[in-house]
């Protein structure tokens, strides 16, 4: 629910002209940042649980992931609007410019994850296969950070901060998963 607030503010800003002289560019930037931020937050859930033993991060993980996909889709729609919904221009961009290729691939990777976010999908796919599929989010987030880095003209500090956080989260998973996971199994947890 809270994740929809930025969308509401964005619409309000667009309505009141607060997006400035180039509203499409600003909306593109903002939805892109929202996508990446939400992806990072969803990736932070498991490390947070591993480090603290809290269970609530795991419960909001799916909502964060779906919100990330929602903003990613919005980001893409605004990009399409920016190019007058010209599929030719889009195809050329995707094929010829690594910056766009990375972003587009990241979004495509999120599609199957969003489609299999329901409880039924876990049952149908089996937990192991479902888990493996959803590991695509690691690649999507990394490509998202790369897309951000390549999209910036010069000030590379913010994209590097995102990349750094993502790398740190991967590291925590890598280091913590084994031991804590085993301990966790012995503990009474939520069903």
């Amino acid at each position, binding site marked *: *629910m*809270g*994740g*929809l*607030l*930025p969308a509401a*503010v964005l619409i309000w*800003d667009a309505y009141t*002209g*607060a*997006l*400035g*002289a*180039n509203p*499409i*560019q*600003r909306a593109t*930037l*903002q939805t892109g*940042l*929202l996508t990446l*931020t*939400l992806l990072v937050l969803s990736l932070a859930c498991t490390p947070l649980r591993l480090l603290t033993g809290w*269970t609530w991060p795991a419960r*909001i993980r799916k909502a964060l992931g779906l919100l990330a996909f929602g903003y990613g889709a919005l980001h893409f729609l605004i990009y399409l609007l*920016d*190019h*007058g919904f010209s599929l030719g*221009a889009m195809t*050329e*961009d995707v094929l*010829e*410019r*690594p*910056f*766009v290729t990375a972003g587009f691939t990241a979004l495509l990777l999120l599609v199957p994850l969003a489609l299999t976010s329901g409880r039924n999908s876990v049952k149908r796919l089996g937990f192991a296969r479902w888990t493996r599929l959803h590991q695509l989010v690691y690649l999507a987030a990394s490509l998202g950070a790369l897309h951000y880095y*390549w*999209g910036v*003209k*010069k*000030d590379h500090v913010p994209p590097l901060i995102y990349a750094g956080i993502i790398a740190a989260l991967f590291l925590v998973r890598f280091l913590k998963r084994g031991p804590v996971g085993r301990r966790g199994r012995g503990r*009474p*947890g*939520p*069903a």
Partner: protein
Amino acid sequence: MSTPPDKKDPVAERRILTPGSNLNPRREFLRTAALFTGTVAALGGGLEVLTRRPGAGSAEAQGTDFVRPARPLGPYDTQEAVTSYQQATTYNNFYEFGTDKSDPARLAGSLKPRPWTVRIDGEVKKPQTVDIDTLQSWFPLEDRIYRMRCVEGWSMVMPWLGFPLAGLIRRLEPTGKAKYVQFTALLDTKQFPGQRSNVLDWPYVEGLRLDEALHPLAFMAVGLHGKVLPGQSGAPLRLVVPWKYGFKSIKSIVKITLTEKQPQTTWALAAPGEYGFYANVNPAVPHPRWSQATERRIGELGRRKTLPFNGYADQVAGLYAGMDLRKFF
């Protein structure tokens, strides 16, 4: 939390971990509502703080008016609709103030355009340091309504006030060795807070070949929309080279040096594969990371086709006869 549960009691522990347990339903409801509200506020608020970049506030058309007679459009003026003063002065790339486009309008108050002197040296017969008001008084002010195309893919139509660069160059009396003109912007972290970060090598340096500088389109602006140039637009003196990407049009100039060798320019140094010395607007040569075929005119939603040399090909293409503009981008 009036009665903390006994941590050693496994049943009590499970009761906390398991929602829907035999807690007081009213308390359970309040707890859930509080958690929900808290999460919504924290997530929404946090995302706002992390990602929102509000546009700059409205810039009043303030400042001193230049007194000048109305005049008909000149041979170099475009008849296209002029970008509003508000938009032209709140959407700026001026990394000396910060990398966000709203930074310049917000922070321009720290720039003090008077007193201001310009140092003129290098391959000239009369090197000197001149006060900006004196320099300005050497020439009658002219209007020029020029298109401006940013390398990022947006454009504006700007009504400048100033004088042709050629007049200034001739007055400086270049020596026979002069081949290029190098411009240097102010370096002062007190007036330019963005210079405290080293996103670029400060001070900002730009340059033109001498024949480019002598072209009648090359212009030195001291005003915009009939007003004295505001800080975010490059007060008190800036270059305007309308057939090149906007970053060539260096702002807040303190030094003009005529040189024998091609100057090292700021963006060409920062990313040589992306920004060249020439930086002529060219829809056929994409930036490595985005197309340059189209642009958005500020104030419009759609995109329009970008024209070679930003629509000034008839006037300036001859300057580059025989040059491979893919190589000399």
